[in-house]
């Protein structure tokens, strides 16, 4: 049996999905969190039913790619759990009635039931059930309230197949249902709503945005540095290094196996940035250099997502984003890209046109460094001074703006206007926010660790075989002539295709000057996305547009790197 979770965007389908199936997926407080369907399983008596979390949609006449996915899914569902935001009954019921016109049995989950009370909304559930002719169960997905009853009543779901001749007729029916089942009572202004009023004010909003961005940046740095300083560095320094040194002695302080596992000893010691063995740098990069920033970044992002701040940022950024051929909502994939470019490129599905998706995905690949890359840049370039890190970020940001401006002129078509629902501010449901952080952290380890280790291994083997010297000599004219870098940096740029963090790590032994580090980090960030992003780009944009995007990336990276070489 296939159970579909359908409903308007941001009504809590993903939270309900996690509750029903025990499969954790990312749920946030903004419309468009889910852009692709996710499967999970639910035990129903003897049977194992498939539950599918479908991207949110306002109507069954889709207007974005994410909505197309939803309508497409409807064809092979056996039961639909229509998730309804109880605080926005009228608009949500419009979709419910559209679903009831189909052949599929429907049961309604009246979600966010806890929110109705303090908003002064009273709903007669029994009456609503009678009028709709399908079961209606009040639920609170983030706490689990009502989930049991929803599952128990699943077999009662029925198809009604009432059809309406026009959307006006349907709205009229919605209106009559709402007037019979819902009444409003007096309510108090909550402090969340006071905050909403301030951040909606043009000046207050800009002030809050600056405050939020500054605080976020500070929190990410503070937590990341604290984890490195108090947890991972001591762990590696006091526990791991002595063990590795023993192993090094046992291996005879040299030889093939030594260089693969431990790598080069620098002055008789292990240098986690430079040794480049599987057990030294191969473990240090993912666990000690990158993971702390993954934790701090995704903690901050998760809180911003769950409070409901991101759509408000989208409104503020709208005018700027239009200059780049996008609209404000494109800021959400862009911010996700600061964590990892893969989900970011996927998230461009919330944009309406193909043109916007192309521009957004290209800009993310060029100008938005992922958390792993940023952590390594902060770790390595930061040793030379904060101003050099600022130069890398500054170059990337300026390139992002200028390339967006050019793409807006060069790509045919127009950027549609912003049209988006702004969710209310909510306190993050801490358990859900914590689970989301855990999900992203373990996702990073599972996906990155094998590739990092693989890359370190391959790099070591290719070094021994002398392949890199060959590549370095071929590319020498561009790298040395145009970018002013020693020809060995080519190897790092090539490895960047596998993993950017490993690639930055490979710059460490080259004893580059601060300026050369700035140039090589910037070029590394812009030149190619990593192989995982490439695969997603090809899938989301198609082969031709992916090649176009790649062309833009290479050209941009060489121009910016060349300019930096001239200026610095």
């Amino acid at each position: 049996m296939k159970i579909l979770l359908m409903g308007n965007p941001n009504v809590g389908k993903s939270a309900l999905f996690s509750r029903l199936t025990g499969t954790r997926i990312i749920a946030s407080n903004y419309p468009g969190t889910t852009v692709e369907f996710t499967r999970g399983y639910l035990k129903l008596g003897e049977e194992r039913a498939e539950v599918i979390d479908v991207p949110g949609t306002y109507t069954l006449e889709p207007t974005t790619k994410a909505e197309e996915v939803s309508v497409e899914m409807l064809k092979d569902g056996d039961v639909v759990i229509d998730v309804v935001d109880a605080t926005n009954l009228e608009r949500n019921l419009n979709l419910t009635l559209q679903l009831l016109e189909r052949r599929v049995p429907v049961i309604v989950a009246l979600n966010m039931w806890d929110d109705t009370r303090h908003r002064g909304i009273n709903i007669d559930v029994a009456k609503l059930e009678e009028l709709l002719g399908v079961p209606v169960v009040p639920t609170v997905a983030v706490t689990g309230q009502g989930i049991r009853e929803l599952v128990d009543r699943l077999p009662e779901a029925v198809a009604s197949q009432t059809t309406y001749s026009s959307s006006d007729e349907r709205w009229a029916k919605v209106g009559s249902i709402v007037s019979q089942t819902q009444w409003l009572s007096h309510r108090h202004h909550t402090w969340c709503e006071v905050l909403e009023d301030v951040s909606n004010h043009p000046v207050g909003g800009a002030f809050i945005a600056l405050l939020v961005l500054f605080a976020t940046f500070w929190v990410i740095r503070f937590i990341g540095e604290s984890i490195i300083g108090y947890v991972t560095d001591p762990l590696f320094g006091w526990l791991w290094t002595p063990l590795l040194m023993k192993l090094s002695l046992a291996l005879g302080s040299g030889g093939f196996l030594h260089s693969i596992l431990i790598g080069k000893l620098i002055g008789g010691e292990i240098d986690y940035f430079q040794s480049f063995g599987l057990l030294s740098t191969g473990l240090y990069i993912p666990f000690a250099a990158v993971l702390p920033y993954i934790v701090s970044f995704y903690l901050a992002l998760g809180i911003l997502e769950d409070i409901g701040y991101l759509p408000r940022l989208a409104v503020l950024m709208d005018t700027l984003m239009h200059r780049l051929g996008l609209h404000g909502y494109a800021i959400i994939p862009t911010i996700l890209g600061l964590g990892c470019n893969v989900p970011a490129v996927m998230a461009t599905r919330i944009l309406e046109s193909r043109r916007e998706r192309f521009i957004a995905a290209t800009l993310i690949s060029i100008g938005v460094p992922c958390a792993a890359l940023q952590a390594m840049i902060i770790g390595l370039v930061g040793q030379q001074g904060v101003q050099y890190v600022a130069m890398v970020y500054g170059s990337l940001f300026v390139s992002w703006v200028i390339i967006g401006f050019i793409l807006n002129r060069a790509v045919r078509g127009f950027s549609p206007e912003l049209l988006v629902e702004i969710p209310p501010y909510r306190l993050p449901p801490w358990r859900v926010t914590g689970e989301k952080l855990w999900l992203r952290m373990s996702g990073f380890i599972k996906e990155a660790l094998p590739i990092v280790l693989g890359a370190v291994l391959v790099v070591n083997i290719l070094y021994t075989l002398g392949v890199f010297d060959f590549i370095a000599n071929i590319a020498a004219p561009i790298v040395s002539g145009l970018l002013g870098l020693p020809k060995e940096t080519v190897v790092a740029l090539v490895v960047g295709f596998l993993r950017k963090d490993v690639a930055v790590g490979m710059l460490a032994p080259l004893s580059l000057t601060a300026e050369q580090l700035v140039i090589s980090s910037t070029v590394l960030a812009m030149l190619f996305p990593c192989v995982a992003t490439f695969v997603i780009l090809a899938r989301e944009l198609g082969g031709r547009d992916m090649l176009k995007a790649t062309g833009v990336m290479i050209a941009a990276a060489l121009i910016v790197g060349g300019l930096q070489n001239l200026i610095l």
Partner: protein
Amino acid sequence: MIMPEKRQLTLGQMKVGQTGTVVQVLSDLGFIGHRGSGFMRRHGPGFMRRHGPGFVQRLEALGIRPGKKVAKVSSTLFRGPVTLRVDNAEVAVGFGMANRIIVEVDTST
């Protein structure tokens, strides 16, 4: 007693805090201007700020349709988006769209 005066404004023209009833949402058709060739067609002002396909339907799906009570919640500088409240939801619409939503404003002063 002061009679409530009824007047129609676009959502873009309304002041923040004003409420009213949606009378009409003008469709996209009038705005396809700049049919000229080349640069203006792609980059003219009509082009930069056009609405997506079927925006009347999209607004309707969001609950913004004739007869609905709306309140203007905020506007942004430089002809940026306008936020309105309809029932319990807040929706941000681009400035161009806001000027195609005609509202009969409640004024009881």
